[in-house]
């Protein structure tokens, strides 16, 4: 850990101003569950840390709206997970939070900070001596010929196959959520699906956020598709583990015929991965186990296997198929 300066922001605008003044080596501090962890590993080495936890106007949860629900950036994962409307009408959103991390971490971590959680790739987190283009651009990617059991099958590049580890953003992507961000040039709105970048040749640039931009809130459009939804997460143990494969799924059914489906994958790609082709494949079809399997196949289309992670293609297919059947069993209002 390196020395850093610390300040508290009184308003979002002041936070942005301080971040711009601090330059590239500045980090916002919310729950701290990722930042502190990586600072202790000497992977994050900020010179300035701006504590935004005092911005209470960013902590509100409002699920009463008729067109959208909003989650303040600083709302705690555990509070959002327990929101009654989410539990009853958007189980995929609630489950994506419940099935992430541990209760202690969910009590600390914020829903916006969770969007920016960084990869668990051991070669990234391990520091020296491992080559990592994300940590040290141009140094190479040790994972390419290394232990890649947990690495990405979708969206990777020669520079990086680090998996995006989060759960909640995967569910948000399935529900067409967006975020409001405040930057030096003012406020703008970004689809969560547009927030994370594939690594390409610049894996060190992980999001489309501009320097100094601060997430203010997450907005989820209201939809009746939430009722028949689930976040299905397969992992190496029953709790406190990152996904080997996960699927956020929501369905609009007419009897057993699919009017519309939303499918997003977690744990398999370099970013939250919306599977639109699989969604289109299901539209207008009866939801049988065969159709669900075909949707899974479509969702994993283009998956590239490495040394140890090939099994997660089939696992991903089955996870999607199971998620569709679980969602279809869920009740209507």
């Amino acid at each position, binding site marked *: 850990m390196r020395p850093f300066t610390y300040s508290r922001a009184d308003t979002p605008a002041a936070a942005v101003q301080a971040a711009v003044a601090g330059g590239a080596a500045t980090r916002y501090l919310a729950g701290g569950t990722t930042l502190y962890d990586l600072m202790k590993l000497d992977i994050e080495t900020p010179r300035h840390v701006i504590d935004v936890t005092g911005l209470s106007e960013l902590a509100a949860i409002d699920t009463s709206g008729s067109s959208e629900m909003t989650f303040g950036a600083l709302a705690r994962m555990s509070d959002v997970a327990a929101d009654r409307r989410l539990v009853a009408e958007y189980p995929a959103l609630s489950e994506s939070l419940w099935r992430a991390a541990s209760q202690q971490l969910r009590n600390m971590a914020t829903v916006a900070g969770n969007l920016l959680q960084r990869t668990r790739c051991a070669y990234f987190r391990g520091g020296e001596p491992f080559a990592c283009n994300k940590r040290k651009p141009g140094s190479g990617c040790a994972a390419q010929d290394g*232990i890649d059991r947990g690495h990405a099958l979708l969206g990777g590049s020669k520079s990086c196959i680090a998996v995006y580890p989060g759960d909640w953003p995967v569910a948000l992507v399935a529900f067409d959520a967006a975020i409001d961000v405040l930057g030096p040039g003012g406020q703008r709105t970004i689809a969560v699906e547009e927030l994370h970048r594939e690594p390409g040749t610049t894996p060190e640039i992980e999001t489309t956020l501009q320097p100094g931009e601060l997430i203010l809130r997450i907005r989820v459009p209201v939809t009746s598709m939430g009722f028949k939804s689930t976040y299905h997460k397969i992992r190496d143990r029953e709790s406190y583990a990152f996904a080997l494969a996960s699927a956020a799924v929501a369905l609009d059914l007419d009897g057993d015929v699919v009017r519309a489906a939303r499918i997003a994958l977690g744990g398999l790609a370099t970013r939250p991965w919306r599977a639109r082709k699989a969604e289109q494949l299901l539209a207008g079809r009866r939801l049988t186990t065969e159709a669900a399997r075909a949707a899974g196949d479509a969702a994993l289309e283009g998956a590239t296997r490495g040394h140890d992670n090939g099994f997660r293609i089939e696992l991903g297919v089955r996870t999607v198929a199971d998620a569709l059947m679980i969602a279809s069993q869920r009740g209507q209002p």
Partner: protein
Amino acid sequence: MTDMAFPDTPRIDALDKVRGAAIFGADDARPALLHAALTVATIAKGRITDLDIGAAQSVPGVQLVLTHQTIGDVKSAGFIMGGGYGFQSFQPMLSPTIAYRGQPIALVAAESIEAAIEAAALVKATYAPEPFSVSLDAAGTETVNQADTPLSNFIPEIDTGDADAAYDAAAFKIDAVFTCPPQHQNPIELIATVAEWSAGKLTVHEGTQNAEAIRHGLAKALGLPPEQVEVISPFAGGGFGQKNSLQMQTVLAAVAARLLGRPVKLVVPRAQVFHDASFRPASRHRIRLGADRSGRMVAAIHEVDAQTSRHDLFPGEYTATSSRLHGIANFRGHERLVRTDVQTPGYMRAPFEHPACFAMECCVDELAYAAGQDPVALRLANDTESDPATKLPFSSRHVAECLRRGAALFGWSKRSMAPQSMRAADGSHIGWGVALGAYPGIIVPTVAKLVVSADGEVRLSIGGHEMGQGIRTALANAVSRKLGVSPDRVVTVIGDTRVAPQHLTAGSWGTASAVPTANYAADAMLRALSELAPGGISNRTPAQILKDAGRPSLEVEVQKKAPGQPDQIFDRLRAGLPAIGGPVYQDHVTFSFIAHFIEVRVEPSTRRIRVPRVVSVVDCGRVISPRTAASQVRGGVVWGIGATLREASEVDPRYGGFLNADLAEYVLPVNADIGSIEVAFIDKPDLAFNNAGVKGLGEVSMTGVAPAIANAVFHATGRRLRQLPIRIEHLL
């Protein structure tokens, strides 16, 4: 007395532990304490050619940057299994040599932990790297026949009858290879030391299983008389074998404290513990098991390749247990050690017995299917009263009763034999598996001092360490029963070199060694009390007798050793050296045994394996502390579930060291992974073994879990999986 079961009493230090009142090594916060951090090697083998400590030294608050260039006259304390005291013979920072990635190359001591960590990261090494090998099959390893080494003097190979001929002639033959990955003990309490010098005398506070080895090891390393070193370790926050000897960084902390004239605390972070302390070595097992047409096992050949380091031979004792599970007249064991560029591996709960039982008991299950016999019935038919390896009788062996009682508790009779024949309502495949486990019965010499005071306090100072297993409670239960006082009046001082020699507490011998000695001390005390009471003790408490006799206190000191050990064994005890007796004694052989019955459910699609139900029946002699004993067995079963389905230390052959060196990525079981664990004890005293009738428990509880799960997975899926851990990818 020994014919009576002990009552279920609470853990004696439970309240202190939940209140945080129990003080562990790293809790120490004495005045003037300096904090230390380590810089570790980033190459897997080679030499330091340059070490730049300038930036580290200029961090405000830094008092010392210690390197091989400045450490002064320090020696290796030697390897605990080679006549020394350390977990390995290689003491880092005595030379520029790098033997493995993660090896300490510098220690920084500073006024704050933050400054120490910052400065440690600023030490920059330049290396001349050399080729290295870190896995069993890598090029450049060196394989050694254990029988050709001096280790064979105290670990002879098991070779009875003519195993090869009997196997060749057998009607049923099973020939299979099993692999077990490296694993790490990961006690929650990290490796941590507080070292303080006062008037030329060194005092160390550290959670350990072997205070005496730390004392004598430090004395040897630093060139001091052992009387100048004391080690205080009232609690260890889990040891599991990792804390069974001198840690390399304890020496470094002691050197730093001496140079600075101030106490130094060094807490090794988790990622470094993966590299700076011992681990369970990778091992590979080929078993050939032969039986006659009736299913009678007639021959077994167990060949082992186990990982060791380049600088030490960590002895393998796998076949000592696999040869004792069943009455197999012809048995040949062969153990080889494979030298790799790692820190020396060591003892991790049931170090040999877990892998050995996995390999052997999976083969026995395969045999049951080959012979078309129920796996419980086959084991009952192959039970033995005498030890097949030595022909001596077992001092006690209740394997058949473990199997019968376990089968009844589990409902084994409802099992259908065919694989994939049992399904749950949700479509999951149900598998029921059984396996035996065993662990050697060992006793070590122990010294005890017992003081009874007129105010009612009973103070027992004795050799032993509390690693969470509950030895304090067992000792209090035993002494309080003998003396007729309440267990909460017994103050037990253990893990403290100032009060009694502290032999290594490991190998499940802690209770079997300390409790009989405590009993012996209590008997001596009763005799001494009766001399104070010529008219007889009648119903008086010891305190009342003392008061009536006008004596403030009474003290006795006793010592006890394993049957057949020479009197000189106490010299080894006092020298901090292993002084292990058993499991083969003059007229008997002692092992603890266990039978596990395990249900798994394998999800039909994504193939997750769940373990909803375990029944474990244990033959560990007399149970002295039923509550902590049952807790120990449940803990052992959880370890077994982890070892079978979760844990593996990942090795990248390009980098050496271990990759998943944290508790998020080294996958241990969590509460949600664990279902019902029902524990039952045979609870019959083994009085041929010791006066308390107690055999070992901590490690036998884990043995046999892995094969019971693997056999259950076979029953559920029809797949024989012989590589641990068993994970989703093996069943998709």
